[in-house]
Each structure stands twice: as structure tokens, then as C-alpha cells.
């Protein structure tokens, strides 16, 4: 059996193609059913905004890859010409390496981002619950979860905020700890203000929007379930709030030093975290000198983000080494599985010989007591086990398919394993044809 990966990602496909090939979470079970109808019944479909990938197990990887591509194109109603250039097909160790890198966040748009591991787990869970997954897929994905976790805990690849909004939330948390009892105010209702409001609103007790454009403020408030206050009442809102993001398009300052002093006096000098994302700046730089105020502007946040990104790059080499180790372990396990049919046939053959010899000697053994007969049975079984131990280990350790096939063929021929298999098959067929004995 082989592992096949077919997919496209932000590395190979533009946004329009990813949009067209994207499969939402609720559609995944139906897509898996469709793949199953095309002969791909042990598969996991991973679809995020940055990638759509199918991991499947098949005896013939190239034909399975073709079938998956055709199925996906047909399912999403796109022509092969539109997606062929963006698609990649990988097998066995390369496919496993790809999944492990994805799960570790090494293949993400923002290296080390944490969401992807959860998405990989979710994709596996859906496949497992909707159609069930086989041993190869199970082992592969559990390896992916382990490496995803290990890379994050051992390399620092996921440390530090790498987006402006996330950096602002991280700073706020370092000042106030848990934000769930703190209030957040945003000045402005443009895209920067919207992104900040969306991001902060998940963590804070309440979000208030103050903007000169009341209609835009109300639209943003409706989107995030926040509240709007008039532009003139913005400083009243600041007295209650601990965090302010200001991102207006105003040409002049919207928070002066004097106004801030009044706000702080009314707040009984409780600390405040101010983020000025506007260009030109909204908040007077002198405000940073006040003891209770932590003021960060666009350049400060950018500096933090860039530093974190650089730190993540340093961790990439270590993460790649961990991924390679995991790939080697997984691939070794997969190779050893190729030997299983031969090993099983060999053991069956030896067991058959042992049993027939015991049957042949049964009249002579009848003179022995039951305990002695049991000892004979045990000794012969142990002999067979010991004789087969080394060949089994040697066979499992073979690391290329050609050698494995040659050794398997040799063993099958030397021990007539195929005849044995045929005999077993006919025995099973005869047993099935015999009518069951009536129950007395």
C-alpha cells in the first residue's frame, strides 16, 4: 500500500483558484463519499483558506492520484486546465513529509501559525467519523499531531505575535492579564479599526466604537455585536475602558496630552494601553511619557512583528530536522508493512507443517500424559517462533520496494507459499459451503 497526496496550496495556486477548489467543513463528508465512489475509500480531505489536499492510501499511487484529481475537478466543477498547473501529487515519504510540515506550521503562509494543527485534527476527525480510516492514515495523522505539538513546544516556532492585531492583543494581555473583565474602545471605523475591533472583541468584556461617521460605526457595531458612542462622547468611553485602538483618518490629533491627563485623573490613574494605528498619528506622542500609559504606534507594532518573524525563521531549521526524523520513523513503519502478507503466509505455512507433524505423531504421543503432550506442543511452537524471528525482522528492515518484492517472491517460491494460500482459500470455501449442523 502507498500513501498518495494530491492538493494545491497558497504556494502553487492564486486566491481565485483556491476559492474555487475550497471545500467547506460541512461539505467534506459528501466530498469523501464522492471520492469513495471513485475507489478512494481510505482518505482524509484537508481544506482551509490556504490549501485543499487529499491524503489517500492505494496500491497504485499514480492511478489513484489521477482519479483524485479528476474527482476533485468534477466535484468542484472546474476544468483540469484551470487547476493542473497548481496541483501537486506526492507519494509515501514525500507525502508524509508534506503533511508533517503542514501540521508543524512550516508550510503556512505565516510560518508557525497555530490554527493549522487544529484544522489538520479536524480534517482527520471528520474522515474518521464519516467513513472510517485505515491503519496507514491513522498512523500518519497521529504522527502529524505529535510533530505539530513537538515543533511548537521544542523549537519556539510559534512564539511571538506575527500580525499587528495579534501583537496588540498580546501586549494588552501582558499588561492586564485576562482581558475578559476589561473594556475596549476603538476610534474610527475603517479597515484597520474593523480588524482590531474583530480581534479584540473575542477577548474583552465590551467593545465601544467612536467615529465621526455614525453610519459606519453602527455597521461595525452590528458586525461584532459591540456598541457605538458619539464622537463627542469618546473621552467618557475612555474613562471606563482600559484599551484604546485609534485608527481614524483625521489629519490632526484626536487625543491630546491635556485630554489624556483629564481622562487619567477621572480613572484614578488606572493604567491604559493605547494603540495608535493611524497615519498621521491620532494620539499625541507626549502621552507616552505618562506613567500609567503604554502607548504603541504602527512602527512599534511592526517592529515587534518583524522581530518575531525573524525569530521564527531561526527555529525553522530545527523544526525541519524534527520533521525529517518523524518522516523516517513513519516511512520505516510503512515499509515494514509491505512485508506483512509474506510474513503471514510464511508463518501460516510453518504452523501448518507443525500441526501436520503433530497429527502424524498423534498415535505415538497418545502414550504420553496430557501435561507432556502440552509440553511437546509448546516446544514445537517455540521452535517455529525462533526459526521465523530473524527472517521476519530482516524482511521488515528492507528499505526499498524492489528488494522487498524480490525477497518476497523468493520466499513465496522457496516455501510454496502461493500454493499454501490457494489451499487455505479452498478450505475456507469448502467450510463456507458446508451447511451448518442443526442445533439439537
Amino acid at each position, binding site marked *: 500500500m502507498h500513501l498518495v497526496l494530491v492538493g494545491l496550496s497558497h504556494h502553487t495556486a492564486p486566491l481565485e483558484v483556491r476559492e474555487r477548489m475550497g471545500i467547506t467543513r460541512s461539505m467534506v463528508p459528501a466530498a469523501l463519499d464522492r471520492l469513495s465512489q471513485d475507489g478512494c475509500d481510505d482518505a482524509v480531505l484537508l481544506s482551509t483558506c490556504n490549501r485543499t489536499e487529499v491524503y489517500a492510501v492505494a496500491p497504485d499511487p499514480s492511478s489513484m492520484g489521477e482519479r483524485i484529481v479528476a474527482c476533485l475537478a468534477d466535484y468542484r466543477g472546474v476544468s483540469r486546465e484551470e487547476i493542473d498547473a497548481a496541483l501537486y501529487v506526492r507519494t509515501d515519504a514525500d507525502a508524509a513529509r508534506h503533511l508533517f510540515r503542514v501540521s508543524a506550521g512550516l508550510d503556512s503562509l505565516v510560518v508557525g501559525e497555530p490554527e493549522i494543527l487544529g484544522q489538520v485534527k479536524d480534517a482527520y476527525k471528520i474522515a474518521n467519523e464519516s467513513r472510517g480510516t485505515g491503519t496507514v492514515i491513522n498512523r500518519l495523522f497521529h504522527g502529524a499531531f505529535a510533530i505539530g505539538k513537538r515543533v511548537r513546544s521544542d523549537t519556539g516556532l510559534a512564539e511571538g505575535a506575527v500580525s499587528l492585531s495579534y501583537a496588540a492583543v498580546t*501586549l494588552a494581555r501582558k*499588561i492586564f*492579564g485576562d482581558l475578559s473583565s476589561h473594556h475596549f474602545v476603538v476610534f474610527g471605523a475603517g479597515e484597520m479599526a474593523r480588524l482590531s475591533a474583530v480581534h479584540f472583541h473575542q477577548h474583552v468584556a465590551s467593545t465601544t466604537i467612536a467615529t465621526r461617521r455614525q453610519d459606519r460605526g453602527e455597521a461595525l457595531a452590528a458586525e461584532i455585536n459591540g456598541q457605538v458612542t458619539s464622537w463627542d462622547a469618546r473621552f467618557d468611553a475612555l474613562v471606563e475602558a482600559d484599551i484604546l485602538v485609534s485608527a481614524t483618518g483625521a489629519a490632526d490629533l484626536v487625543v491630546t496630552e491635556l485630554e489624556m491627563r483629564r481622562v487619567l485623573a477621572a480613572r484614578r*490613574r488606572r493604567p491604559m494601553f493605547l494603540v495608535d494605528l493611524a497615519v498621521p498619528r491620532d494620539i499625541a506622542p507626549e502621552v507616552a511619557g505618562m506613567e500609567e500609559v503604554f502607548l504603541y504606534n504602527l512602527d512599534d507594532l511592526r517592529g515587534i512583528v518583524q522581530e518575531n518573524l525573524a525569530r521564527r525563521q531561526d527555529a525553522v531549521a530545527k523544526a525541519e530536522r524534527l520533521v525529517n526524523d518523524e518522516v523516517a520513523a513513519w516511512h520505516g513503519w510503512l515499509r515494514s508493512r509491505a512485508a506483512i502478507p509474506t510474513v503471514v503466509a510464511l508463518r501460516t505455512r510453518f504452523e501448518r507443517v507443525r500441526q501436520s507433524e503433530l497429527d502424524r505423531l498423534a498415535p505415538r504421543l497418545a502414550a504420553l500424559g496430557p501435561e507432556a503432550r502440552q509440553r511437546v506442543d509448546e516446544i514445537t511452537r517455540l521452535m517455529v517462533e525462533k526459526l521465523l524471528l530473524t527472517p521476519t525482522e530482516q524482511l521488515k528492515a528492507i528499505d526499498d520496494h524492489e528488494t522487498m518484492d524480490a525477497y518476497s517472491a523468493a520466499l513465496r517460491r522457496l516455501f510454496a507459499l502461493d500454493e499454501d494460500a490457494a489451499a487455505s482459500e479452498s478450505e475456507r470455501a469448502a467450510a463456507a459451503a458446508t451447511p451448518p449442523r442443526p442445533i439439537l
Partner: protein
Amino acid sequence: MSLALLYVAAFAAYVWHFSSQKALAGRVATGLLLLAILVHTFVLGMYTMELGVPPMAGRTGAVSTFVWMLAIAYLSVEVSTDERGIGIFVTPLLVALQGLVAHGAMPTDVPQYFAAPFVAVHVGALLFAYASFALACVVGITYVLLFRELKRRTPGVFFQRLPSLQVLDRMNMRAVWIGWLLLTIGLVGGAVWLRDVSVQMADDPRLPHMTLTDPKILMALVTWVIYGVLLASRRWAGLTARRAAWLSAVGFALVLLNFLPVAYFFARSHNFA
């Protein structure tokens, strides 16, 4: 000496945890500190059984008991908050103080009036108060370090390793509150004890010095006033968390001064060993 080495091992593990942030390092650090505390408890317990009272009289006994209490106070904070970031700042203090008295002799005999219940209240409460102030000082210093990084807009190692300013502020104020209450109990306990044993100790040369003019007693009262002012200002006068952190560090400097040099070079009221 072995106790100091155990605290050194705990300190090394906290350094490892601070630099690597590995969960295993954190567990090892906590485990080693717990081991040190358990061994320390056993040692102090043996002395208590031998003397009939806890070995808090004399420099070696008092400092060792103080180290034990500080270690317990820190470990309880660590366990309750699941924050190990300040362990690297507390354990050097444990190492230094335990190392200081490592070769000193523990008390082998104590005067009979030491068995009075109020002496245990006096000495025990004061030692625990000083341990709380030590913890508040360390937490206060970490608060100032993190505050500086955030204020200068250059988040660095303290930003990554320490808990939030609010958590540090809460820990600091809680430690100061507990310390101040115990200091109050200890001072009152000492005064009551003095009244009770003044007849019994009539011939004791230390008795005439047990007044407000004695540097050790005076410094203890000054410390009580400073921490009291800190708490009152924080509660009613809007003292900022950063200034409270500084003040708790200054307060502990006074405690240390009183605990070691003043007690043994200037004061004549508390020379029990």
C-alpha cells in the same frame, strides 16, 4: 551545607526553565524546590524535637527558618498561580541566605522563657512577615523590569517569561498585606511577651534595652509604618502599581538591614546566640 546545595540545584533548574521554557524543566525546578523544603522541614523538625521549641533563636536558626518560610511562601504562590517565571529571582535569595548560615551553629539550648507561647507568636509571625516582604520585593523587582520593557516598547526576555503586570501587582500586594498583618501580630506578640516575662527576666542584661530606643525595635516599627503607608496609599491615595513595587523593594531593604547588620552590630535587645 547540603540544604544550601539543594537550593542551588533548584535555582539551576529555574534558570534552565527560564531560558528554555520547557515544561519538563519547570516540573524539575518545582520538584527540586519541594525536595529542598521537605529536607529543610525535616532538619528544623529534628531541632524542634531536640530543643522543645522551634530553633528560631540566634542568627543561624532564625535565618534558616526564614529561608524555609520564604521557600514555602514562594512555592504556594507558584502552585496557586501556575507561574514559574519568578522562581529564578527568588531561589538566589534562598541560596544566599542559607549559604550564609551554612557553617553556623544551630542553637543547642534556649532560655526557659522562650517556651512562652507569645515568643513563638512573636518570632514565628515576624519571620513569616519578613519572608512575605522578601517575596513582595522580588515580585516588585520583576514588575519594574517588565514595566520598563513595556514602557520602552521593546518587549524582550521579561516580556516572554514573566506573567502579566496585573498578576505581578496582585502577587506583590497580597504578599505585602500578609506580611504587614503578620508584622503587626509579631510586634504585638513581642510586647505582650515582654510584659509577661519582665519579672522572670529581671536580671537579664537585654531587658533594659527592650525599648523603642533600641535600633532593632525602632527599625521594626519604621518598617511597619512604611508598609502601612504603602498599603493605605495604594488603597486610598491612588499610588501606582509601579511605585508600590518600588516601595515594597525599599521596605525589604530595611527588613534585611534590620534582620542582619542592625541586629548583630547595634541592637542589644535581641542577642540570643
